[in-house]
């Protein structure tokens, strides 16, 4: 019984997610990550068949749950709907991406720490304690890096790992 309940819960979440997706065959979608892999199959760990640049236009050819079969020029493959956007992202964003490789981002330092202007603002307003608290949050947050998030998504079967 418990097994059935779990199945229906998972099915209803999946159906709800599909229902929330705004994509239909013939729609356009846009890449929003610095590089987006198109995959051979609608599975997170499937073989990549193409790598698409930021803010590229994709044609939606098929919808399978939360996965889209898309094409861009000569490239064609599957992409998780959460990895694309309905609207074209601002081109300005491309120059402001954070380094994503582990070698460039350590777990003990915030990837983008509290801005110097904000720090000075806190000091000038006598909010040094609150400033230190925000920095504590940043340190805690930095420990949850990309690898930890991927491991969590995989373990919980969330996002593209469902």
């Amino acid at each position: 019984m418990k097994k059935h309940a779990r199945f229906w819960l998972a099915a209803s979440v999946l159906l709800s997610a599909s229902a929330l997706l705004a994509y239909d065959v013939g729609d356009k979608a846009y890449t929003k990550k610095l590089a987006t892999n198109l995959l051979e199959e609608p599975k997170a760990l499937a073989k990549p068949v193409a790598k698409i640049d930021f803010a590229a236009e994709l044609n939606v050819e098929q919808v399978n749950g939360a996965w889209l079969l898309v094409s861009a020029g000569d490239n064609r493959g599957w992409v998780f709907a959460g990895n694309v956007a309905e609207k074209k992202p601002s081109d300005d964003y491309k120059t402001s991406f954070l380094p994503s490789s582990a070698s460039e981002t350590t777990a003990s330092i915030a990837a983008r720490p509290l801005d110097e202007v904000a720090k000075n603002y806190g000091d000038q307003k006598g909010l040094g304690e609150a400033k230190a608290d925000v920095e504590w949050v940043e340190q805690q947050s930095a420990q949850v890096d990309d690898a930890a998030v991927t491991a969590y998504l995989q373990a919980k079967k969330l996002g593209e790992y469902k």
Partner: protein
Amino acid sequence: MKRVWLVFALLVLAAGTCLAQFSLNGLDPFKLAKDAGTLIKGVAGISLKEENSIGGAVAIEIVARFGGVWKDAAATQRVNIVGKSLTRYCDRQNLDFKFGILNSDTVNAFSAPGGYVFITKGLYDLVGDNDDQLAGVLGHEITHVTQRHALKIIERGDILSGVSSGWSDATAARNDNYAVFGTVVGKGVSTICEKGFDPKTEYAADTGGRALAAITGYAPGGLRATLIRLKMGGTNQTAVIFPTHPSLDKRIKRLPEE
């Protein structure tokens, strides 16, 4: 031409008056007049660098107003893992989101430009170990950030339009003109903590947060369930719950049951 200067002078005067309620130690709000050329020049939009400056300062103000940060590492890690799972699929992948818990028993949540998201300890306790409800709340706040709701208000502010344009041209940030910067931050804090967003903006954050939770794989009804729990909390609780938001009834009605 004279009229343009008159309007400009009034703008500077208005900004000074505004700053009287938002005092910055040792700074002269009327220093703005020295930056007349910059203010007239103006620049459309707020860059990411400026967004991070404003967001960091707004985050400091939020923390100061709500009892500081609750330094429970395990709880903070949990909020970050759920929050960052959601932001993996949000529409602004160039932001560095941070999630913290405010040491306050009130039940509320806030976000600041640049990716700062806070929930109060009261709200953290209310959702308990239910990740779907936590994701619903965080998704709502993440959507405020990705859709630049606070920044849009700063950019279109009546009195501040000239001031924020001048600031975005960077004199404030780079030449220590914190009078201008303080005005911009004050506008953000006032919107986020006091006046609140208009109902249309809140509904957009509800819809966006629900969609983000769903695509990440959380139950899409998490936010709605949290709002229902808030409503059932009774008068004493709802008096301090999201005082800046539209009524809970209206928000619950607008969200699908699942």
